């Protein structure tokens, strides 16, 4: 075992983690622990853009952006947080430009902007050009630019280090630590992939920036490595997860594969059509049609398929039509996604419409934080020295449904805030003693899996998890389907206890890591389903066919899910609480587009 000591330890090197590192590394001794090389992070897969009311091409302001974010999130957004994000968006985009990000330009040489789903002028009048972009590679450019700046600042990276535990001064998993009791983070435990060695990082501040958990579903735009590690580690240590029942299904995944085709395709004029060739979004969102928010478009698509107007031999997808756009325009604005259609489906988007279907894309929920990225352990108490930013966190700026481009914005605004806050905390905090035997939990779990000669296969349990989540907890949900998912997940959790890995080696044991990741996925799936079952209403990305309308009277609150120890050591149960939604300017209205 090796022990390291840093003022600030950042876990994850995607957009949020690197943005945080750029701030904290100039203020405090900082290390970034990342399970992938930084440039492999899934920020790089984001395509369409990053919204900010620059008003470079038409009238716009941050208040409109705030409103759109609140309405897009079906009024579950904390409005103070949304306002911070929309205001700071402008500086966040300019920061990136000054770092060298190659944005597309207007004829005057300024940052160009384009339309995106749910972003409107003057509170819903019409679509507005707000998304700053670099072709359909905006996330790639952000990831590269932030990494370039980290190279410039000589940020210390520990590449291919998997953080497997976070150390806290109190055991919160019993649920018995009273409100108001100070609780602090003292470091993390990490597994070095190359050697199999365990490292303890002692730190005054820990920032989680570990990204999403799309792999709980089968059809997803997410990378294989997006297994919700940070969310699950926090959950296991007794920290709640907020609003996990809200998962975004992106309308346009490549049919059968789930690979993302950016909403920018529709922002640039692409149209969704059913088997009758009808532009069906006209029926669902008469004003902004194909540019309605993602939850509405995804449901509309699923509904078209359900009512028999799907395309293809199985009638199980709809079509994204770009054929009326000039090939030169497609090449300039949408080069990557059209290449995906060619490479993976053999479809030529210049002349043929592309088969698409919703794909699990983004966790609106996550580790609850304040607007300064401090992690909350209940609706009011923060964990000293523990921060979270990006998809792992729930501020909540996305509420029940995230607007397109607001995730790239989130990682930049709240990544920056997390880095500043973490460094500031470290500047005044004293060093804490590490708990006795800090690696016991991690080593115990690793040895259990490696030592078991025979057992369940990781891939079998994972496949069954993903299949039940797709079948029972996707775009349309009912009590019945969710109970099925819950029972399946519980049964799979039992089977997980007897999982074994074939690779018994120490060096580069990815077999072992997949087993550990599966454990995270199972815990998170259980929380998603528990929240979805309890929320007997439909709001944003969570649609209950048995409760098809929004119920502000009963459910205009955040869900706080806690994993608590059950009767036996291997048993846990999810208990649910609530947290009020912060409202400042906007009262809930019916959501029409």
């Amino acid at each position, binding site marked *: 075992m090796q022990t390291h000591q840093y003022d600030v330890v950042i876990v994850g090197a995607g957009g949020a983690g690197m943005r945080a590192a750029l701030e904290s590394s100039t203020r405090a001794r900082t290390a970034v622990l990342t399970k992938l090389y930084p440039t492999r992070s*899934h920020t790089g897969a984001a395509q369409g853009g990053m919204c900010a009311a620059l008003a470079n091409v038409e009238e716009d302001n941050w208040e409109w952006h705030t409103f759109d974010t609140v309405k897009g999130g079906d009024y579950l957004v904390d409005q103070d947080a949304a306002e911070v994000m929309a205001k700071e968006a402008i500086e966040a985009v300019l920061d990136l430009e*000054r770092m060298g990000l190659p944005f597309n330009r207007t004829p005057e040489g300024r940052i160009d902007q384009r339309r995106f789903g749910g972003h409107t002028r003057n509170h819903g009048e019409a679509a507005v050009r707000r998304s700053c972009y670099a072709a359909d590679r905006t996330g790639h450019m952000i990831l590269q630019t932030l990494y370039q700046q980290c190279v410039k600042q000589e940020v210390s990276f520990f590449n291919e280090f998997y953080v497997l535990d976070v150390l806290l001064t109190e055991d919160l998993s019993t649920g018995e630590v009273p409100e108001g009791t100070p609780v602090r983070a003292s470091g993390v435990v990490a597994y070095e992939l190359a050697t199999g060695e365990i490292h303890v990082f002692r730190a005054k501040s820990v920032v989680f920036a570990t990204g999403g958990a799309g792999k709980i579903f089968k059809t997803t735009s997410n990378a294989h490595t997006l297994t919700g590690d940070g969310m699950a580690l926090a959950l296991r240590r007794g920290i709640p997860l907020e609003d996990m029942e809200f998962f975004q299904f992106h309308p346009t995944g490549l049919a059968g594969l789930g690979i993302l085709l950016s909403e920018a395709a529709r922002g640039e004029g692409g149209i969704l059509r059913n088997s009758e060739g009808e532009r069906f979004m006209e029926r669902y969102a008469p004003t902004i049609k194909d540019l309605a928010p993602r939850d509405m478009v995804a449901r509309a698509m699923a509904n078209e398929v359900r009512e028999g107007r799907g395309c293809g031999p199985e009638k199980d997808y709809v079509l994204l039509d770009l054929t009326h756009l000039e090939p030169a325009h497609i090449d300039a604005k949408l080069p990557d996604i059209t290449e995906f259609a060619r490479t993976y489906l053999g479809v030529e988007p210049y002349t043929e419409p592309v088969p698409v279907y919703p794909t699990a894309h983004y966790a609106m929920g996550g580790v609850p934080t304040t607007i300064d990225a401090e992690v909350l352990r209940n609706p009011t108490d923060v964990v000293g020295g523990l921060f979270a930013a990006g998809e792992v966190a729930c501020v909540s700026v996305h509420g029940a449904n995230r607007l397109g481009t607001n995730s790239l914005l989130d990682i930049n605004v709240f990544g920056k805030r997390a880095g500043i806050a973490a460094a500031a905390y470290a500047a005044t905090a004293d060093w804490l003693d590490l708990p006795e035997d800090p690696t016991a939990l991690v080593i115990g779990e690793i040895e259990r899996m490696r030592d078991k000669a025979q057992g369940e296969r990781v891939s079998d349990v994972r496949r069954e998890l993903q299949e039940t989540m797709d079948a029972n907890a996707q775009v349309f949900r009912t009590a019945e389907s969710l109970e099925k998912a819950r029972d399946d997940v519980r049964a799979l959790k039992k089977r997980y206890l007897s999982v074994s890995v074939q690779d018994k080696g120490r060096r580069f044991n990815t077999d072992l890591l997949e087993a550990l990741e599966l454990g995270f996925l199972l815990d998170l799936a259980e929380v998603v389903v528990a929240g979805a079952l309890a929320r007997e209403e439909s709001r944003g990305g969570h649609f209950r066919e048995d409760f098809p309308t929004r119920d502000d009277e009963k459910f205009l609150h955040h869900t706080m899910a806690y994993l608590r120890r059950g009767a036996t050591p291997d048993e846990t149960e999810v208990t649910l609480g609530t947290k009020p939604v912060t409202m400042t300017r906007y009262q809930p209205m019916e959501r029409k587009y």
Partner: protein
Amino acid sequence: MTAVLENSAEPDATPEVGAVPSFDVTLRIRRFNPEASEAAAYWEEFTVTAYGTDRVLDAMHKIKWEVDGSLTFRRSCAHGICGSDAMRINGRNRLACKALLKDLDPSKPITIEPIKGLPVVKDLVVDMEPFFASYREIMPFLITSGNAPSAERLQSAEQRERYDDTTKCILCAACTSSCPVFWNDGQYFGPAAIVNAHRFIFDSRDEGAEQRLEILNDKEGVWRCRTVFNCTEACPRGIEVTKAIQEVKRAMITRAF
């Protein structure tokens, strides 16, 4: 500026999505276990059932998940943008997640080896550190002088277009590890580092071109390039790598950029 379509000759080969037949495919994989008593590389063959839209990565996952969990490779996004899974497939560098089995003639075994010129750590995993060290050396970040402007720097669409091609790089190392000069001389910066230097040298906002050109004027710099074009052929992003290297060479002489 999209990448070349690999199966452009047979666009009708996939009639309808979902109606693709299955076939058996054999993968002949170069294995290396650093912890074996006699650690030596060897070939191992696996035969799995695949489907029409499956990529090499899908077949490898099938092996890892159903046959041999110890088969080790890096991967993440699985659609060609994270750059984790560059490997040598049938003798040519590709991303395993972008190489469709049906395009590789599955009637014959498909050979899969780690990319060349970097130390093999385990099976298909190589030590990427020398690659990233070269990248870091060329100062891959915007260099400017004076105070930062309060708004954005202006750049015309034409100026932006000038370096567009090289902004697409995902640092997968397919180009560098396909270069025979790099195979024989690990000190050579390699195509990827030069591509990333190009991205800044030709960016109208950047003022560090002279410094980068000095670095690349080194005996292990651009002049080692023999215009073999392996890099251009290997690039999964369709970047004209050799052309970019030539432009850097020209800038070195003319000092015009």
